[in-house]
């Protein structure tokens, strides 16, 4: 399984692998919003937590449809399914690789983007913490959606529609944690909820995704 993670990360950083796609998208969102909303610092400070989280979420969404589709097209998904690796493990490894190449760079780069949106001082820490807690859930939920739509031509649209509602709780609690953190309030409740969602999806969705893959491979 570690091999699979390493392979996927390696594929992502090679030419045409899509590494940086999410990051670039995140950058575009955070650069464009101040132009659209206007340069008024107070307004930006107010909307920064929400925009940052929405941007991170959409950036994650962008690379989801490649997760299983590429392996499906070149036949390696069939071969992985017959290999001595449980399909649940394959899903977990692919979700982890997706997080390492999409979620983690977002977490690391987020403070910089927070600066562009005039996020207030104490918010930076909670932005990083909430993204670190929340983005794994985005990758795992995305893996489930990708497993459901694998093999469909142009499954990306369906994938987005399936996955977006499942992303809503993570978005709400993630943005709420940053907002409270930025205003100096207690962030305990939204962070706990966020961690709970992540832990729950990590525990359940690899099995659901593997079941979906088995049906789709028939």
């Amino acid at each position, binding site marked *: 399984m570690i*091999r*699979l993670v390493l*392979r996927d990360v*390696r*594929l992502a950083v*090679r*030419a*045409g*692998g899509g590494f940086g796609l999410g990051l670039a998208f995140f950058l575009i969102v955070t650069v464009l919003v101040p132009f659209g909303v206007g340069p008024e610092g107070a307004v930006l400070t107010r909307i920064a937590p929400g925009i940052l989280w929405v941007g991170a979420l959409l950036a994650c969404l962008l690379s989801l449809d490649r997760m299983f589709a590429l*392996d499906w*097209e*070149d*036949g*390696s998904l*069939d*071969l*992985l*399914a*017959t*290999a*001595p*690796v449980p399909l649940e493990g394959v899903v977990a490894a692919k979700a982890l690789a997706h997080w390492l190449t999409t979620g983690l760079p977002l977490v690391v780069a987020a403070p910089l983007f927070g600066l562009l949106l005039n996020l207030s001082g104490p918010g930076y820490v909670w932005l990083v913490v909430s993204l670190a807690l929340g983005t794994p859930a985005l990758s795992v939920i995305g893996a489930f959606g990708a497993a459901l739509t694998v093999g469909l031509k142009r499954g990306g649209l369906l994938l987005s529609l399936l996955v977006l509602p499942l992303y809503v709780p993570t978005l709400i609690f993630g943005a709420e944690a940053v907002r409270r953190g930025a205003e100096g309030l207690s962030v305990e409740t939204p962070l706990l909820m966020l961690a709970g969602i992540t832990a729950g999806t990590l525990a359940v969705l690899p099995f659901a995704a593997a079941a979906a893959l088995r*049906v789709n*491979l*028939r």
Partner: protein
Amino acid sequence: MELRVRDLACARGGVPVLEGVSFTLSSGEALVLRGPNGSGKTTLLRTLAGLQPPLAGEVSMPAEALAYGAHADGLKATLTVEENLSFWAGVYGTRDIATALAAFDLEDLRERAAQNLSAGQKRRLGLARLLVTGRPVWALDEPTVSLDTASVALFADAVRAHLKKGGAAIIATHIDLGLDARVLDIGGFRAKQREAGAFDEAFL
């Protein structure tokens, strides 16, 4: 090691294509599947590989004995020959890729990215994967597509060596590999039309 198939029936896309397929395959034997296009060779192999459940009948063999070689080679275009092969070696928990590279004459291409290989070279890399799986039963779907005669001979040698080591192979092919193999014509097992199952059958 023995692969025993009894009264197997399988479907493709919800339509039954084969029924009553029975054969046994023991160590050192090769079985060649023949049959016209659409007769269900791929479906049979996928069922044996466990990618789809049989409609009826049973397949018995030791756990984790089968290595499946599909139409597609499962190669990653941006990885080199060596990286592709060592990935699969790692997945199957084996280390030695040198033998596999040598068997399919891929040593000079080691550092070449898979996207820069010719169709035949890709196929040879796909077949080399079988050697690194270390599994006794090979189930191969049209393994010689896009191979030239020299490469077909390499492949036949690899199969022969595999059989000699106590392995077995079941190969769907149309050309004569020069193997001492039994031939199973699956044209004779075509499934009769039966009433369609419930609409949600594919999901249950």
